[in-house]
């Protein structure tokens, strides 16, 4: 009987030949290739596409479209009205409400900041994962578990001010981290794909907190609805600008977290390990880095940040916890991290952008009658476009212009 033979691996797919040095490109192309230009173009194109949807769903525009060729001006006018109303409402809800008076005029921008807090925290965590080569699709579950843990500490424990929110946050970080850590541990021990495990854990978390909400652990005593009691006053995050605004300390925490993540990834030896594993785990292993440990640590940190984001949603704004508390924060955070290119500054800016969309959408719905779901479309299109810079270039007007001027597109895409 012959001994078992090592199966020959297929030869790795040969990389396409790369030119040795960076090829010299025309100035215009360099601008186009820059991340900022791609992002700006992508945002613009997404808003354009959303505008088409708005017009398509607008009854006045639909009516005018029937006699489009007889009186095109009617259609253009109706379409313009629909789009303008939608986007102006979005702007008024997210940045500056010029129709309001006094302090209420600047309230929208603080609402944007509030909405960005969980996105920022969860997005920072996901970014660490992406840069460490871990596709954590499970922020949704981690946010939910963190929110549940924070809510439980906030409701069940009787603690003094300061200590109470701190402890609630610590609990959220731990629970979120451990929840993500399951995926990290399984990947480290058995090689299980973290993509699949985190996707599955999202659903498990949903049913798990659903179950807890039917028990006395989380459900408000005396209630039959699956919803927790409101968090104690002592546990709430302090307001930053007084009771007129909802802006809370969590925003500062999120910004500090971004700085900490920057230091972790760029300056610490731990971050060096994370990045090395993300870029080439074989070389990292050969250099003495324990790759399984890194998997677990990355997931703990990422899940901790996502869990903290979940707690902020409860302790900063919602006060009560229910199965829908996480909303779509976890999935939105994926788009935030992708749009932010997994870098802390980018993630902060992306979180503010998507926070603005979230903050502005209720007014858009009530004032312009455009459903908030439009925001999801805008978000998805932005991320799809920035993930494929060549597509943005092909779609953008500047590109067409550059083609007219005789610049070779192949050069830039090669």
């Amino acid at each position: 009987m012959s001994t078992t033979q090592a199966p020959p691996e297929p030869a790795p797919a040969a990389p396409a030949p790369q030119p040795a040095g960076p090829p010299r490109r025309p100035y215009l192309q360099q601008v186009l290739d820059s991340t900022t230009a791609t992002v700006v173009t992508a945002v613009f194109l997404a808003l354009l596409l959303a505008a088409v949807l708005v017009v398509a769903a607008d009854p006045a525009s639909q009516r005018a479209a029937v006699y489009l060729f007889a009186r095109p001006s009617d259609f253009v006018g109706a379409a313009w009205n629909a789009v303008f109303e939608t986007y102006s409402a979005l702007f008024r809800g997210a940045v500056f409400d010029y129709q309001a008076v006094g302090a209420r005029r600047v309230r929208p921008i603080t609402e944007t900041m509030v909405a960005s807090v969980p996105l920022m925290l969860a997005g920072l965590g996901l970014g660490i994962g992406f840069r460490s080569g871990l596709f954590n699709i499970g922020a949704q579950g981690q946010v939910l578990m963190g929110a549940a843990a924070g809510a439980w500490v906030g409701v069940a424990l009787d603690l003094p001010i300061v200590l109470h929110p701190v402890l609630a946050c610590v609990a959220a970080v731990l629970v979120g981290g451990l929840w993500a850590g399951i995926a990290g541990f399984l990947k480290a021990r058995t090689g299980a794909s973290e993509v699949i495990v985190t996707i599955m854990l999202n659903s498990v978390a949903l049913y798990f907190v659903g179950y807890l909400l039917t028990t006395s652990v989380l459900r408000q005593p005396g209630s039959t609805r699956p919803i927790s009691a409101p968090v104690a006053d002592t546990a709430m995050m302090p307001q930053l600008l007084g009771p007129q605004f909802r802006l809370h300390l969590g925003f500062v925490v999120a910004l500090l977290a971004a700085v900490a993540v920057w230091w972790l990834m760029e300056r610490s030896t731990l971050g060096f390990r994370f990045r090395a594993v993300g870029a080439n785990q074989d070389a990292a292993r050969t250099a003495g880095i324990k790759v399984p440990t890194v998997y677990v640590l990355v997931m703990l940190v990422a899940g901790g940040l996502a869990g903290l984001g979940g707690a902020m949603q409860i302790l900063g704004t919602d006060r009560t916890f229910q199965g829908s508390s996480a909303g779509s924060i976890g999935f939105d955070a994926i788009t935030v991290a992708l749009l932010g290119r997994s870098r802390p500054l980018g993630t902060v800016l992306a979180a503010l952008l998507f926070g603005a969309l979230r903050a502005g959408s209720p007014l858009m719905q009530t004032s312009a009658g455009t459903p908030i779901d439009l925001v999801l479309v805008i978000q998805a299109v932005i991320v799809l476009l920035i993930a494929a810079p060549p597509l943005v270039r092909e779609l953008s007007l500047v590109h067409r212009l550059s083609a007219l001027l005789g610049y070779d597109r192949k050069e830039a895409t090669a």
Partner: protein
Amino acid sequence: MSTTHTPVAPAPAAPEHLSTPVQAPVRWRGPLTSVALGVFSLVAFGLATPGSYETTFTLATRGDLFQIAPVTVPSRVSAVLLSLVVLAAAAVQVQRARARRRVPVWTHVVVGAAVFLALLVWVMAGREAAMPFTLLLTNALVLAVPLVLGALAGLLCERSGIINIAIEGQLLAGAFLAVVVASTTGNPYAGLLAAPFAGALVGLGLGLFAIRYRVDQIIVGVVLNVLVIGLTNYLFSTVLTNNPQQLNSPPRLPNLPVPLLADIPVLGPVLFDHPLTVYLMYVGVAVLQIMVFRSRWGLRMRAAGEHPKAADTVGINVNRTRLRSTVLGSAVAGLGGAALVSAGLAFTKELTSGKGYIALAAMILGRWSPTGALAASLFFGLADALRRVLNNTGSPIPSELLAMLPYLATIFAVAGLVGRVRPPAAEGVPYPK
């Protein structure tokens, strides 16, 4: 750069200095799992049940030609007997495994079926309500159809090398279009016909970004899901809500009982009295099982997913093969969306509620094969059907736990606790050309 990495298997001659031949290790995991299941079932479902309890099963359904009377059995004795059957089958497995022989498939089937029956006996022990056995199986099959079609979609894409996380979006798009077309035309078959196009459109997006722009396939999948959810939610809130009579009240897909076969007691209603979607699922599994593994098309598709460069060097256009498989697979998922609303359901926001991810799980548990996907989907369908029955009758098992079951099973599967799963080698790797 040169990545010279061709591990070489040693020459076949046996080395002289190895005195004892190396034997393959005994695979204990499967048999031991069966033994554990048997013991658990014996203790939890059998011995723990009070001896006076009885369990009633109803076998008849309303439309049956011959009405079968409900069957009542003593709970404890039945559960113990069933557990002993499990242990007997497990003993066969242990004996085969020790002899390093293949464990026969029928023993797994016996273990699964007997444990399941013992569970049913226990769940309804000492209760007024009867376990609607035939209805349970029928519902399980119907609930499994979208999962099977979604899993088939996943495996068509992944066998060709494209990871399809967007099954959820494809189901949702298919369901949306099926509802709208069926409502406007008043013909459910028109909806069934239209749904694959919606799925294929999502698949085209996946293919375009994954193949042409080489965007990470997992990212594209996740984002496409968000996009489809956003679009269908938006259209639901605007167009469909403005005109629900015309756009969102689809007729039901009629049942087409197979002559004679549908009249068999129990089996007839479970297998042969269904709408067209169920029969399409039967055909889809059978045809794909043959085509994927034994046809020229399947061989080329799998070559693209396992070793694209090898496929390229024999003149197979890898990226075209991948795009076609992706679009075809996504169309199948679109059909799954239509199956989801075949009972004449109106469209609602996020109607699929994670079924696409369960389909993904079924594909993994089924090890990327059509019959495996069918088996895994039926298991998930059964868990779902049982959950619904128990929701009505009340049960000792929290319904959330049953709902978690598919996800937990998948985590165990990918962690290698129920055997090794091996995805196509070049899955997720773009082929630059």
